[in-house]
C-alpha cells in the first residue's frame, strides 16, 4: 500500500468518522433536551494537589448544589500544557468540553483556534457586572475591546523576603527592596552579615524577564505585544532586556543571586533560609507563609531604576468556552451562571484565602478587608496593591505569542546560559530571539 492510497483511505475513513460523529452528536444532542436530566457542563482543568479539592469539592459541588438544574463536571486533565493539548485534540475530534482552563501562555493559541465563544458573546448585557472586576485582570484577556475568556486564577509576581535575615543583616524588616539598586545594596549587606548564604533568587525566569519589561512600560514583542495583530518579532534582545539580564548576571557573579531553577523550584532555597529574597508568583503566598519557619514579608517586584513606570503583568489561567458542535441556550446559561458563581464574593474570597490567587472582584476585596483578612495577612494584599499602581498600556497588558510555551522554554534556557556564564547576556538573548522569531514565523504560516 503506497502513501497515496494510504492517505486516501485515511481521508475516506475521516469523512466516514466525521459523518458518523455528527450523526451521533445530533442524535445525542436531541436526547437530553427531551429528558428531565440536569444540563451537564464539562470543565477541564489543571488544578492538581490541594487545589484539586478546592475546585472539585468547594467550587463545583457548591455550584451544583445552588443550581440543581445544572451540573458542572470538573475533570483534572494534567498540567496546564497537557490540559490545553487535550482540549485542542478534543476540538479536532469535535467533542471538546464546555469550559477549559488555559494558562495565560496559551491565550494566543486559543484565540487562533477558531473553536471558542468569546465571553462577551454569551453574557447578556448586565448579566455580569464586569465593572466590579479588577481591571488589569480583565485587560489581559481582552483583545480589541472584547473579553474572550473568563479570569479565574490570576496572579502576578511579587518579592518575598525573610524578615529575620533582614534584621540580622541590620536592615529594616519592614522595607523590602523597591529597585534593582536596592536589591544590590541590601543584598550585599545580607551576604556580608552571613544572615543568608545568598541574597536573592527567582522562579519562572522568562516570566520575570517579561515582568521587568512590563514594569518599565516596554514592549516584549512587536505589534503592541501581539495585541494589535499577530506578533512576528520578539523584542527582549533589545538593549533594555540585555541590560536586565546583564544586571542579573552581575548579581550572580557577586554571589548575590543563587539561581534555583525554573517555576517553583527555588522556593525550597528561600524556605530553608538559604536565600533571603524570592521573586515569585503571588499564588504561592499561602503555601510559603505556612511552610516558612521565619516571618515572611512581601513587597512590590523590584524595578530597574530610571525607567518609565509601567505595571506588573498578570499570570495564572482563565476559563475559555469552547464551541463544540454548538451549545444549546441552556448550556450557555449554565456556563454564565457558573462564571457568576465563581466570582461571587464568598467564593472568590475563599479561593484567594486558600491559594493566594487574586480575589476577582472589588466587592470580594472589600469583603476580605471588612473581615480583617488583609490586616491579619498583609502579604496577601501586596499583589493587589501592586496591580493598582502604574499605567495601563499594551506593554503592561501582557504579551500574546504563538508557540509561547516553546518560546518561554527558549528564553529560560537563554537566561540560564547567561547566568551560568556559558554565553554573554547579549549573545544569549540574540540567539533566543532568533529562535523565537523562527517559531513565530512558523506559527504565522500555519495559522492563516
Amino acid at each position, binding site marked *: 500500500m503506497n502513501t497515496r492510497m494510504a492517505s486516501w483511505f485515511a481521508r475516506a475513513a475521516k469523512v466516514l468518522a466525521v459523518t458518523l460523529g455528527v450523526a451521533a452528536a445530533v442524535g445525542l444532542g436531541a436526547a437530553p433536551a427531551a429528558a428531565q436530566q440536569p444540563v451537564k457542563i464539562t470543565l477541564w482543568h489543571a488544578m492538581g494537589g490541594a487545589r484539586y479539592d478546592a475546585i472539585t469539592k468547594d467550587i463545583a459541588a457548591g455550584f451544583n448544589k445552588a443550581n440543581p438544574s445544572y451540573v458542572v463536571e470538573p475533570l483534572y486533565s494534567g498540567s496546564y500544557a497537557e490540559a490545553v493539548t487535550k482540549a485542542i485534540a478534543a476540538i479536532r475530534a469535535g467533542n471538546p468540553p464546555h469550559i477549559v482552563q488555559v494558562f495565560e501562555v496559551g491565550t494566543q493559541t486559543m484565540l487562533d483556534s477558531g473553536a471558542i465563544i468569546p465571553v462577551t458573546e454569551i453574557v447578556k448585557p448586565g448579566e455580569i457586572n464586569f465593572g466590579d472586576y479588577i481591571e488589569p485582570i480583565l485587560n489581559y484577556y481582552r483583545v480589541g475591546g472584547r473579553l474572550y475568556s473568563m479570569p479565574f486564577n490570576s496572579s502576578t509576581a511579587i518579592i518575598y523576603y525573610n524578615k529575620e535575615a533582614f534584621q540580622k543583616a541590620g536592615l529594616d524588616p519592614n522595607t523590602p527592596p523597591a529597585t534593582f539598586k536596592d536589591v544590590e545594596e541590601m543584598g550585599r549587606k545580607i551576604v556580608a552579615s552571613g544572615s543568608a548564604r545568598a541574597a536573592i533568587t527567582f522562579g519562572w525566569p522568562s516570566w520575570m524577564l517579561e515582568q521587568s519589561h512590563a514594569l518599565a512600560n516596554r514592549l516584549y514583542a512587536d505589534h503592541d505585544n501581539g495585541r494589535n495583530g499577530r506578533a512576528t518579532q520578539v523584542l527582549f534582545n533589545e538593549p533594555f532586556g540585555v541590560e536586565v539580564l546583564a544586571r542579573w548576571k552581575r548579581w550572580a557573579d557577586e554571589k548575590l543571586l543563587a539561581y534555583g*531553577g525554573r517555576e517553583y523550584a527555588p522556593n525550597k532555597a528561600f524556605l530553608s533560609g538559604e536565600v533571603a529574597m524570592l521573586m515569585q508568583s503571588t499564588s504561592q503566598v499561602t503555601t510559603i507563609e505556612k511552610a516558612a519557619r521565619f516571618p515572611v514579608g512581601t513587597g512590590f517586584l523590584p524595578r530597574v531604576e530610571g525607567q518609565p513606570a509601567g505595571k506588573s503583568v498578570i499570570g495564572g489561567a482563565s476559563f475559555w468556552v469552547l464551541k463544540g458542535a454548538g451549545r444549546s441556550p441552556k448550556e450557555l446559561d449554565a456556563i454564565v451562571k457558573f462564571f457568576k458563581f465563581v466570582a461571587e464574593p464568598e467564593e472568590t474570597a475563599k479561593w484567594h484565602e486558600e491559594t493566594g490567587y487574586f480575589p476577582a472582584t472589588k466587592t470580594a476585596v472589600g469583603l476580605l478587608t471588612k473581615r480583617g483578612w488583609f490586616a491579619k495577612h498583609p502579604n496577601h494584599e501586596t499583589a493587589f496593591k501592586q496591580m493598582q499602581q502604574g499605567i495601563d498600556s499594551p506593554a503592561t497588558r501582557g504579551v500574546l505569542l504563538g508557540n509561547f510555551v*516553546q518560546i518561554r522554554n527558549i528564553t529560560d534556557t537563554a537566561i540560564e546560559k547567561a547566568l551560568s556564564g556559558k554565553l554573554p547576556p547579549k549573545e544569549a538573548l540574540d540567539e533566543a530571539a532568533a529562535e523565537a522569531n523562527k517559531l513565530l514565523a512558523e506559527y504565522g504560516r500555519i495559522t492563516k
Partner: protein
Amino acid sequence: MEGRFPNRILPYALLFPSIAIVVAFLIVPSLQALRLAFFEVSPFTGRGLFVGLSNFRVLMESDIYRHSLEITLLIAGGIVLAGMTASLAVAVLASQPLRGLGVYRVAILWPYALSPAVAGTIWALLFDPSTGPATLLIRALTGLSPNWMMNGTYAVWVVVIAAAWKMLGFNVVFFLAGLQAVPGELREAAQVDGAGAARVFWRITFPILSPITFFLFVMNSLYAFFELFGLIDVMTQGGPGGATDILIYRLYQDAFISARWGMGSAQSILLFVMVGILTALQFRFAGRRVFYG
C-alpha cells in the same frame, strides 16, 4: 516435506491478524511520518503546509536539538557502560555453582518489573536533596550534597543510575545464560596452563559471551533511547535547565505540547535512522547463539 501440513489457506488465515495489524498500525503510520516530516501542520485543522527540508534544517541548526542529542547519547552511554559492566560483574560472580543462586537471581530481577516512571519516582525519593537516603549516604561518604533538582550534572547521574538499576536484573539473567554456555573444561584447561583469572576471562569467556554482549548492547541502547520517557517525565521533565532533555522527551514536547506535528515527525524520522543503524549492526554481527534474534 516431513512434518509439514498441506493446507493452503490456513497459513494465510493464521498470518492475517499479525500482518493486518503490522501494516495498519506500524507500517502505514511510519510511512506517513516520513511524509509528515516535510510539512508544518496546523493543530486545529490538521491542514498541512509543505516546507520541504525546513524541519530537518531547523533540527540540524538548533542548539536545543543538538544538545538533546548529546544528552541522549551521554545518558545512553552511561547506561550501557555502567549498567552492563555492573551486570557482567554480578553475573560472573553468580555463575559459579552457588547455593541460593536462584534467590539472588530473583531478587536482582525485581527492578525489571517496575516501570521507568516508578523507578524514576523511587530514585527521586532516594535522592531527595533534603531527606533522601542516597543523598545522606553520599554526604556522609564524600561531604558533597548532590541536589539533582538544581544541578544538571547530578540530574544526569541520577537518571543513569535509576535507568541502569532497572535493567540490572535483565542483563544479569542474559549474561548468566551466556556464561553457562562457556564450557567449564575450556576454563579449567586454561587455568591448568597457568593463566590467571583475568586472562581466562578476557581470552576465553568474553569472546564466547560476545554475541550476548552485543545483543544486550542493542537492547540497552534501544531502552535508553525509547523507554526512558516515563522516567524523565516524572523526575526531571527534561530539566534542570535542559540537562536531561533527551530526544524522546523533546519529541513529546514538540509533537504533543506545542502541537508541531511536522517537526515532531521529523524528529521521529531521525530516531528511526538511529534505530536503523542499531538494528543493522545487530543483524550484521549477531551470531547464531543470540536468542531473541
